[in-house]
């Protein structure tokens, strides 16, 4: 068992010595990639591409013994030097971080819920603006991730392709001509690519029900996941659409289908909003103004209700309502992240209990949106 006071044996151990400090800094700030506005930023929060990769020389993490898991960390960390993650990527040692810090990383979508629950040595490496990151020893040895604001598949691809290409010159990936990149779960075999677009679709959810949209996705071999990825629920009318098929289609083909479907859903959402705002528009306005009332007068808000309120206020903003149109989109993105329970607890020590947290959340929301505290 390694002791924290031991002298670091590897480069990654030295780099990971500041894991806790990195987490404290992360929790205080909004990722800078999220502060930029992206294409169709009012409907599309973010685009994410991840690639699953394994090293040829080691068993996959679920079968690798402790010694090889540690070797994997060392090999990958050493290979990362000078790559697109930046001169000194931040290195977070998950096994040293308390649960709260790990949950905060899930809220920032830097770590998957599965990754923070795993046992054993595992690292998260990330660049300065958090747009490019790498989970080491997740279900696969490597999960590369690129994030971009708005609907920006091409930009995310450029970033992740560069990292993947350079990494593949320094480490030997598990790859077969027949099956492509070999992954622990056969659902990722082949390209190992997952392209996800996080969309705000309140009108579709209200008027048509999201089930209709889901069946459209299924016809394209795609699926709708929750806010934090696989196996998580949708909140605040945020839906994450992503590809399922990873084998037999090239990366470009997969990206083209996701781009097409995202654009399709975007147009459908815009069209539905148009329908809702003409004629019997009180149906929609009622929801928006109720949310505004909640924002003004509620004294306690749990995170679910907060996301729902933010969703309707964002819609009010998009519909150019006088009281809401001045709020910048970046503020909505910031609040969506910073009012999550993990971030609140990290940044406000006195919010360990749900009562304190929900009260603070209601207050912060009012203050941030320029209303009386």
């Amino acid at each position: 068992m390694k002791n924290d006071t031991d002298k670091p044996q590897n480069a990654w151990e030295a780099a990971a010595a500041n894991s806790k400090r990195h987490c404290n800094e992360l929790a205080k700030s909004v990722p800078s990639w999220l502060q930029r506005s992206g294409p169709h930023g009012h409907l599309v929060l973010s685009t994410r591409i991840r690639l699953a990769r394994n090293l040829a020389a080691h068993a996959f993490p679920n079968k690798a013994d402790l010694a090889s898991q540690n070797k994997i960390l060392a090999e990958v960390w050493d290979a990362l030097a000078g790559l697109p993650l930046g001169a000194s990527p931040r290195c977070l040692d998950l096994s040293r971080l308390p649960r709260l810090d790990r949950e905060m990383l899930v809220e920032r979508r830097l770590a998957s819920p599965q990754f923070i629950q795993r046992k054993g040595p595992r690292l998260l490496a990330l660049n300065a603006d958090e747009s490019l990151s790498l989970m080491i020893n997740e279900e696969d040895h490597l999960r590369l991730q690129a994030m971009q604001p708005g609907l920006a598949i091409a930009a995310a691809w450029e970033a992740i392709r560069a990292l993947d290409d350079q990494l593949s010159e320094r480490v030997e990936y598990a790859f077969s001509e027949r099956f492509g990149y070999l992954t622990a779960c056969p659902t990722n075999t082949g390209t190992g690519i997952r392209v996800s677009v996080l969309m705000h679709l309140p009108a579709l959810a209200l008027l048509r029900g999201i089930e209709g949209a889901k069946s459209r996705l299924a016809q394209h071999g795609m699926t709708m996941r929750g806010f934090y990825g696989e196996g998580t629920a949708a909140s605040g009318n945020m839906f994450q659409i992503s590809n399922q098929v990873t084998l037999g289609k090239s990366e470009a083909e997969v990206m083209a289908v996701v781009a097409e479907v995202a654009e399709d859903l975007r147009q459908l959402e815009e069209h539905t909003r148009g329908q809702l705002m003409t004629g019997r528009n009180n149906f929609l306005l009622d929801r928006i103004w109720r949310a505004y009332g909640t924002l003004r007068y509620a004294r306690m808000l749990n995170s679910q209700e907060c996301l729902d309120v933010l969703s309707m206020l964002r819609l009010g903003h998009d519909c150019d309502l006088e009281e809401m149109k001045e709020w910048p989109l970046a503020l909505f993105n910031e609040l969506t992240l910073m009012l999550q329970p993990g971030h609140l607890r990290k940044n406000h020590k006195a919010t360990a209990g749900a009562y304190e947290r929900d009260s603070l959340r209601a207050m912060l929301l009012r203050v941030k949106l320029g209303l009386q505290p």
Partner: protein
Amino acid sequence: MTCQSCHNAEATVRLQQVVNGKKSEIFLCQACAVQRGLPSAATNLPEFFGKVVSSILGEAPGKSSGRRSRGKHEPRKRCQQCGLTWAEFESGGLLGCAACYTAFEPVIKVLLRNIHGRNRHTGRRPQRLRPRAGKTVAALRQELERAIGEQKFERAAELRDQIRAAEQAGRTLPPRTP
């Protein structure tokens, strides 16, 4: 579209099956899909996946035996590299190492085809495996023609993929995004 099983609810799941090389497709609602052992949004995929590996492979009673002959599955067969048995994979849903793909290749081929609709990679290759010069692509083309001439179609398909990958390498165009 309504569910083609209960004809009541909206269909949200597309189930594709390939039996003896013949593809069939059915649209189901979530409830009917779960009834048939398909995942719901809340399912942990690897775990779910392990549980239905045998059903994906068509070993449930009354299913076609055509696939079984091609992808014969032996629960006690073991990967020599990492020691994973097929039975372990079925219960956990995860393979143990790269060599598992070779150890269980016949049955993996069937499995991958049932998951993805195809079982041959057509995407990118690691940088170090990519042909460096145009000459290499030309050589691959010559070999492809030879393979077709000799009716070695399995090899021809491999070569075709390599040529395609070589041509795509370095100029994989991302899709147009608005």
